[in-house]
């Protein structure tokens, strides 16, 4: 849909990345756009239910259960960035 979950994940990922001192370009996309344009993404943050729809994308798929939990986002991003 590109207006809700993706926007929230982008906002909170940017907060976390800034706190971590990591420079990154973060784009919000709905599932259609992600599949169409997301081949260059190193990491794809999404919700657990959408992971299966992103299978085959070259980037690391990182499911976030609680989009407002900055600790969860930070832990999972840190692991994905290793």
């Amino acid at each position: 849909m590109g207006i809700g979950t993706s926007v929230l994940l982008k906002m909170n990922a940017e907060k976390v990345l800034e706190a971590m001192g990591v420079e990154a370009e973060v784009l919000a996309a709905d599932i259609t756009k992600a599949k169409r344009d997301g081949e260059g993404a190193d990491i794809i943050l999404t919700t657990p239910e959408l992971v299966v729809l992103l299978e085959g994308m070259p980037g690391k798929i990182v499911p976030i259960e609680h989009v407002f939990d900055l600790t969860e986002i930070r832990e999972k991003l840190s692991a994905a960035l290793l």
Partner: protein
Amino acid sequence: MNSVLLKALGQRSIKLQQTCLNWKESFEVAGAALVESNRTTAQYTTDMIQAFEDLGPYMVIAPGIALAHARPSSAVIETGLSLITLATPIEFGSASNDPVSLVIGLAAVDHDSHIDLMAALSELLMSNESVTFLTQAVNESEVRTYLS
């Protein structure tokens, strides 16, 4: 920040302690509230329900909270929110965030002009205290006072 939320919540967009049997009924209430507050047409409610049917409970974005929404389209008259609380929490089929007590209906005219609104919404919903307040509130005026 909070006046952004109040502006997005038009007249008749807040329905508290609703009795709904399932996720679809709660989406119908959230959608009807967007229509009543002149943010969307009834088609948007259909779109939200279709989106959930297509993609599953990914809209249950945090414990107890569902963000009902669909793509921007001509069914959206103006960006806005509806706020629905459920008298009895409902299972939406989310692996980690069920049951749902708070349904936020979101309509946006495009993909980016509602960023401030999402930032305010994120700040509100990040607070357990706020979410508890909202799910226990019984009248609209206390919610509007809280948000201001």
